[in-house]
């Protein structure tokens, strides 16, 4: 998918002035966010499971080559074919080549974020193969020719009227209004497609190393359709999706699903161990798997960013993020929005385009609190900020094009700040001078318009004048008074 993260500010501004979008985004708080909290409070040993999930993920990522190797061997033992793609273009090419070589005319797709990285639908269309998204949200945005707004609920930004307009042409212009009827309409439109599709392309929620299993989690049944009806199943996964053992699935399914939607379990969980057996009545004749890098190696290579690969793509971080709930999914400009998007987009696609993303956060920490595997997203945002500004951080420089985004002016400001904080007298003097300079434009101690870089503040807030007398100049007096209070019999209570 094309990277449009450079338009972050513009798209964010437009989103924040759209009342309908704001209403849809607010629904994320009352729905998914609250749902996760209820599950967290009512699930036995929730915190322990988060810790355990994180520990397992950390172990896999630290030994990723080993587990990928084990997984691949087992997929092949099960009769599947595995391909490694260094980048999205290579992955897309593999899928298309296979489709063409097998005479595939129609591909049904179940949700796959990696396939969005690949821009797979465009590539298939260009090659004369018909791709049809079957997850209702993905189907809607495919018809709208838009990027997903949220990784779990891609069409969360669309009103039912907009959905009605998008679905009508597929039913010969027949427009329905209510949500249940629209859902039924989508079912009717896609049912024949399920039947005629030659290939199903899915994502992978979990790849189990010891069994070569691919696990898919859905509610609608389209994931099951894509892996049961067509003659070929093609799964696409980021290389980080591996977990070691079948046994671990219980824990990961629990923490993924409860964190994502607040359900106890998703309606369907499918565990695929290769193509169908010879004596089976349905199922694909062939199973193919593409394992994709596409910049993940860069995350792996940076110890400060490596834990971004623990992500199990639940969406809890964006549900919890007060910034996401204002700016929406399209602002982030690529496949992954919200806090995880703000980390992986610059790391995987480059800091140049995505330079605003790590700064679009108040570092409130709600994302880390929500993450089922306790990824320390705020720390990684801070790390990326330092890389954006200083070019290197710690020992690893992985972004040769990283450069101070605001230019020399900002650097000077922080040099001056550092000087000012370097001694108590200059610190105090600086504040005294600022007060004197601002006094003429202040009214009763407040400014309606702050100068220079601080002017953004006063677009919506009054800015206070520095105090007439700093605390340090008052300390002695306060201390004396407090001592007097004590000798006179102490304070009111205390």
């Amino acid at each position: 998918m094309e990277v449009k993260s450079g338009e972050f500010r513009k798209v964010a501004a437009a989103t924040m002035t759209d009342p309908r979008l704001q209403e849809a985004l607010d629904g994320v708080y009352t729905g998914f966010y609250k749902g996760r909290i209820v599950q967290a409070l009512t699930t036995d040993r929730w915190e322990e499971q988060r810790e355990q999930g994180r520990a397992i993920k950390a172990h896999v990522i630290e030994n990723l080559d080993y587990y990928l190797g084990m997984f691949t061997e087992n997929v092949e033992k099960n009769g599947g074919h595995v391909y490694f793609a260094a980048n999205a273009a290579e992955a897309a090419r593999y899928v298309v080549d296979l489709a063409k070589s097998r005479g595939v005319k129609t591909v049904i797709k179940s949700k796959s974020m990696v396939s969005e990285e690949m821009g797979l639908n465009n590539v298939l269309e260009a090659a004369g193969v018909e791709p049809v998204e079957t997850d209702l949200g993905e189907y809607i945005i495919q018809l709208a020719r838009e990027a997903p707004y949220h990784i779990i609920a891609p069409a969360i930004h669309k009103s039912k009227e907009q959905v009605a307009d998008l679905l009508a042409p597929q039913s010969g212009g027949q427009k329905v209004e209510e949500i249940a009827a629209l859902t039924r309409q989508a079912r009717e439109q896609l049912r024949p497609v399920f039947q005629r599709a030659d290939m199903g392309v899915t994502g992978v929620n979990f790849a189990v190393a010891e069994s070569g299993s691919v696990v898919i989690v859905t509610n609608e049944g389209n994931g099951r359709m894509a892996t049961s009806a067509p003659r070929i199943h093609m799964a696409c996964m980021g290389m980080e999706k591996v977990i070691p053992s079948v046994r671990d699935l219980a824990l990961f399914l629990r923490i993924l699903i409860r964190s994502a939607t607040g359900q106890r379990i998703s309606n369907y969980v499918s565990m695929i161990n290769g193509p169908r057996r010879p004596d089976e009545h349905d199922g694909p004749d062939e199973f193919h798997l593409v394992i994709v890098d596409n910049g993940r190696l860069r995350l792996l290579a940076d110890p400060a960013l490596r834990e971004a690969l623990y992500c199990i793509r639940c969406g809890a971080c964006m549900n919890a993020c007060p910034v996401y709930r204002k700016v929406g999914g399209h602002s982030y400009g690529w496949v992954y929005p919200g806090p995880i998007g703000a980390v992986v987009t610059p790391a995987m696609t480059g800091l140049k385009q995505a330079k605003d993303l790590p700064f679009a956060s108040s570092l409130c920490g709600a994302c880390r609190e929500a993450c089922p595997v306790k990824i320390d997203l705020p720390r990684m945002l801070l790390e990326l900020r330092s890389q954006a500004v200083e070019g290197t951080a710690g020992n690893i420089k992985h972004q040769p094009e990283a450069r101070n985004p605001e230019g020399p002016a900002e650097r000077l400001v922080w040099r001056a700040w550092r000087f000012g904080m370097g001694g108590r007298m200059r610190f105090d003097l600086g504040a005294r001078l600022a007060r004197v300079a601002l006094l003429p434009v202040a009214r009763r101690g407040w400014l309606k318009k702050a100068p220079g870089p601080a002017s953004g503040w006063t677009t919506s807030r009054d800015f206070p004048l520095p105090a007439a007398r700093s605390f340090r100049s008052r300390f002695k007096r306060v201390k004396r008074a407090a001592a007097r209070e004590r000798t006179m019999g102490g304070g009111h209570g205390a």
Partner: protein
Amino acid sequence: MTDRGAFLRAVRVVLDRRDEAPSVAPETGLSVGRDELLAEAERVRAEAARRAGPLLDALAESAAKNAWKVVRARTNEDAAEAVAAACRSAGAKSVVRSDHNVFTRSPVDRALAATGVQVTVLGRGGTASDAGRGRLKAEAFAVDAGITGADYAIAETGTIALHPRAGLSRLVSLAPPVHIAVVERGSVLPSLDELFVLERESLLRGELPSYMNLISGPSRTGDIEATIVQGIHGPLETHLVLVG
């Protein structure tokens, strides 16, 4: 296409690892050895048998929460009647049923025939051939209801587990607008943890099936204005007949 060796080598280099197996972290199920796991599986089966009654009750409750239409049947005959009644209430006139071994105990065909419902049984008429598979697919999308057993059920989540194999398909529980599943007492496990112990046991015994479906109710979506709607691509309604 990138060479697999090169891909994995690049990962190894970045991790500064040698090409050898790491010591396994205790947190993962991989750290449990074969003997220990087989013993655990025995315990799981023993518990499922010992607590069969309460687990079935717990399943009834959790399944109802997931919008399964739950019916309790005391005997195999009652179960057959319940299946027929479910078909009747759903207006189902044509059904496909899997050849799960529960139907050797529960005379479902007889009960359905008595109410004039046309039954196709999976596995009869050579469906394990390309032509047969094509016929089954067309039929699964055309019939009014699909009837299956369940290999296991999970009380924690209101779920049934099905493993497609000879006599049991993927589409019968998916394509028809109505799915009726019969769960026998003694097949209910407390939670996902026990289920995956048994799945791992199958793996270690070299008996892992090609597919497993966990089904927890009728298909649903919340993709339009975050409003949950029951019934989209999978069955619109699901019935659970609990026997025993």
